[in-house]
């Protein structure tokens, strides 16, 4: 909750990009161009931002044209991640539009000779007493927006917003239903040629020799590219590029690879590596209660693939020493920074422009493929080169969400009340995004002749929600705790940001153990949680979900119910989930009920869509997903080897929003994963009487847990 601050400050994105005209411009045709630095990744952000702008400017939403982010002109808002787009871009735009409206009203007042306070704006037309009128577009020549925002602008009170807070239809959906090209994959630039890159099957293997003869003979081949361990083909069609790549692969000689861990002993691997240890948080007990016993539990989650439905794709075109790149990266400026390092070019020579891709769910290969296209385009003159990864490479060479081992020791008194809590995490870092270090993070940068070492993933600072430690500090009012994070300094399996970073694992662990302690005490798990919470918004989502799911439903054989709760990043959206499952040794999730509080929900249906999607994706992670590997290669390289939830397996999902228009909005995209994971695990216990502490919860894991329990 934000308190009115004595000295008004600009929203963070606006402070970094203060020029008003970089955010909003009036076009002469009666349009309004809105230019955010955040990008559409299927989360509906462009619609929410259009709603905010339409409201503050008092124009019809149909007048608003969203400009795709580009380093040529857009404000630099870093990366579209962490459920921050509404929070950062939305706040900035709301401020900008409020100030722009104010400036135009002042100009109108001068032109019309009417006090600005008496003027009104309706769909961009400014009118006042005596039937005087003008408009944003008439005044556009008089009002320069090439000036910095000031801190004083006041946005509309929540109650007077007519567009934000309502379920407006998304602006991008008609294109997608009628197959009008919108995805980068479907963009046909003139003179486009197609590239493919040769990547090893063995993990960490390096190309040491290449016979290009057969590939050169493939009809349609334009060029073969070789730069150290990086090799690829350029051809005049995708089919020719595929054929040439196949021929190239036959001519390749690889070095031995690097060994991979034992996929069946992830905890053993994670706990045996060199680490950097950080104390995340401690709380000392006010009074020392004696612990009667200690419950020590270990939870694990495997590596999880982003597994976008679309393989990553990019286009690049050189013009002398200037470069234009089209990408579905989540951060155009960050990608540009890495490209500048690899290419040894000034950043000003490079334009990186966003185009929509499929949902990415974090840092997948979007950035990697952009460098691939840039390197291949070097041989294509001024023709643009389009590179698309294969499904195999998408599932094996893109970064994964990091595996985690989490150990919690809960000290309990004689009544099984918690008196102490120690939470320790072993995991690779959860972020190795480009543009944030002196060293590039892009895959091909580790392959070229002048190569860089592979970036070892790190964790964002606690102020940004942390990484492996995300959501590890208890939200509950426990008397004492210590939270430690051990980040691995080796990285045999490449990891980077996947939705929630460490949040899903930590919430799974905390909420599972709380459930176990409540059961030990014979206390209802919801009562137990409410008793340990002070934050009313937290209690409200738990009470709301309990009401909606009619907690606690009567016990039936073969059916189980479980609850999970978290506030994402401990500072974002509140979400509580109740899972209803059925099962014996195979688990089916029948229904998920969720309550969520994102503050002001700009587009309530958009929030519900994000929560539903997060809940279903989390169900898929929990029941099915695990990156597979042997000791030398990733083996889950197809949908057969990496199955995800199918239509018939998807549970019913029912979402309630607690709308709080007076509270600054936060994002919804990652709020559901942790609570749903825990709710399913707790429902499995309710149903079968066993605690499965290693994800995914498969038949094998349940049988193993049953054997352990008996």
């Amino acid at each position: 909750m934000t308190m009115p601050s004595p000295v008004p400050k600009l929203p963070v994105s606006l402070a970094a990009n203060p020029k008003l005209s970089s955010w909003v411009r009036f076009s002469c045709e009666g349009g309004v161009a809105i230019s955010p630095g955040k990008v559409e990744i299927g989360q509906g952000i462009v619609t929410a931002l259009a709603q905010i702008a339409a409201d503050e400017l008092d124009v019809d939403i149909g007048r608003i044209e969203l400009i795709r982010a580009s380093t040529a002109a857009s404000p630099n808002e870093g990366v579209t991640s962490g459920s921050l787009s509404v929070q950062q871009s939305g706040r900035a735009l709301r401020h900008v539009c409020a100030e722009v409206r104010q400036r135009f009203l002042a100009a109108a007042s001068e032109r019309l000779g009417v006090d600005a306070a008496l003027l009104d704006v309706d769909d961009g037309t400014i009118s006042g007493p005596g039937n005087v009128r003008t408009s944003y577009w008439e005044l556009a020549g008089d009002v320069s927006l090439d000036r910095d925002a000031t801190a004083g602008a006041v946005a509309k009170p929540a109650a007077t917003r007519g567009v934000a807070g309502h379920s407006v239809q998304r602006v991008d959906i008609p294109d997608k239903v009628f197959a009008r090209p919108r995805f980068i994959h479907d963009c046909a630039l003139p003179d486009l040629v197609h590239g493919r890159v040769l990547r090893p099957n063995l993990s960490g293997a390096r190309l040491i020799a290449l016979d290009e003869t057969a590939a050169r003979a493939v009809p349609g081949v334009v060029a073969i590219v070789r730069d150290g361990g990086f090799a690829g083909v350029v051809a005049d069609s995708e089919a020719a590029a595929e054929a040439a790549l196949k021929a190239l692969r036959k001519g390749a000689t690889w070095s031995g690879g690097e060994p991979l861990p034992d996929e069946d002993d992830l905890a053993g691997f994670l706990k045996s590596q060199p680490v950097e240890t950080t104390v995340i948080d401690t709380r000392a007990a006010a009074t020392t209660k004696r612990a009667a016993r200690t419950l020590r539990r270990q939870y694990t989650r495997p590596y999880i693939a982003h597994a976008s439905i679309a393989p990553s794709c990019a286009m690049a075109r050189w013009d002398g020493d200037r470069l234009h790149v089209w990408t579905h990266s989540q951060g155009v400026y960050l990608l540009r920074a890495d490209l500048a390092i690899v290419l040894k070019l000034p950043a000003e020579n490079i334009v990186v422009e966003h185009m929509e891709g499929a949902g990415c769910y974090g840092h997948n290969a979007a950035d990697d493929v952009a460098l691939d296209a840039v390197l291949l385009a070097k041989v294509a003159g001024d023709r643009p080169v389009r590179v698309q990864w294969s499904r195999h490479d998408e599932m094996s060479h893109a970064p994964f969400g990091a595996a985690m081992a989490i150990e919690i020791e809960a000290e309990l008194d004689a009544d099984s009340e918690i008196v102490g809590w120690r939470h320790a995490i072993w995991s690779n870092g959860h972020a190795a995004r480009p543009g944030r270090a002196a060293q590039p993070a892009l895959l091909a940068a580790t392959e070229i002749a002048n190569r860089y070492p592979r970036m070892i993933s790190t964790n964002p600072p606690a102020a940004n929600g942390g990484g492996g430690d995300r959501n590890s500090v208890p939200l509950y009012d426990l008397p004492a705790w210590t939270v430690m994070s051990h980040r691995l300094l080796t990285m045999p399996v490449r990891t980077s940001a996947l939705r929630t970073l460490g949040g899903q694992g930590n919430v799974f662990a905390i909420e599972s153990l709380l459930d176990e302690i409540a059961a030990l005490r014979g206390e209802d798990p919801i009562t137990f949680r409410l008793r340990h919470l002070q934050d009313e918004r937290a209690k409200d989502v738990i009470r709301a979900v309990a009401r909606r799911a009619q907690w606690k439903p009567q016990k039936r054989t073969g059916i189980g119910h479980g609850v999970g709760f978290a506030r994402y990043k401990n500072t974002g959206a509140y979400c509580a989930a109740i899972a209803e499952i059925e099962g014996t040794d195979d688990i089916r999730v029948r229904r998920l009920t969720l309550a969520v509080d994102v503050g002001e929900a700009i587009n309530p249906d958009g929030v519900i869509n994000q929560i539903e999607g997060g809940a279903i994706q989390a169900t898929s992670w929990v029941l099915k997903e695990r990156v597979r590997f042997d000791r030398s290669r990733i083996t889950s390289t197809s949908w057969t080897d990496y199955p995800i939830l199918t239509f018939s397996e998807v549970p019913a999902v029912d979402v309630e929003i607690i709308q709080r228009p007076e509270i600054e909005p936060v994002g919804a995209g990652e709020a559901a994963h942790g609570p749903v994971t825990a709710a399913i695990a707790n429902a499995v216990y309710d149903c079968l009487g066993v605690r499965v502490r290693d994800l995914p919860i498969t038949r094998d894991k349940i049988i193993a847990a049953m054997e352990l329990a008996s």
Partner: protein
Amino acid sequence: MPTIQFQLNGAAMTVEADPDQTLLDVLRGRLGVTGPHFGCGAGECGACHVMVDGRAMASCDMPMWSVVDKVVVTVEGLGTAEQPHPLQRAFVSEQAMQCGYCVSGILISAAALLKRNPSPTETEVRAALDRNLCRCGSHNRMVRAVLRAAAETATS
């Protein structure tokens, strides 16, 4: 290269193509029909689904020789903004997607279902879409949209 004839979205089509080339390649590459999307190249995800003689099939591993004289419908052939297919209207009404990359294939699977079964149950809709993967978790919205389209068609 041999000449291959088939019907595409209601029009006769003649292309010179390697008979082993995939239909998806020809559609997207040669003909600029970009509604069907590449997802896996192995017929496992459904992003490239097209209707062939009324059945939803993966076009990414369908050789051109097998398309000879067949009736092929892509999402472009379902309807337009001016004259939308009931499914397209229903997908907008239900806001039935997040990223939407899988949607063109799902619309085709659903259209093929409604052709053979105009009033499917929810279970039948889900079964018909099981060969289509959605990673964003928009499944339930899509199922509601298919049921809505079926209901609207039945009452119109």
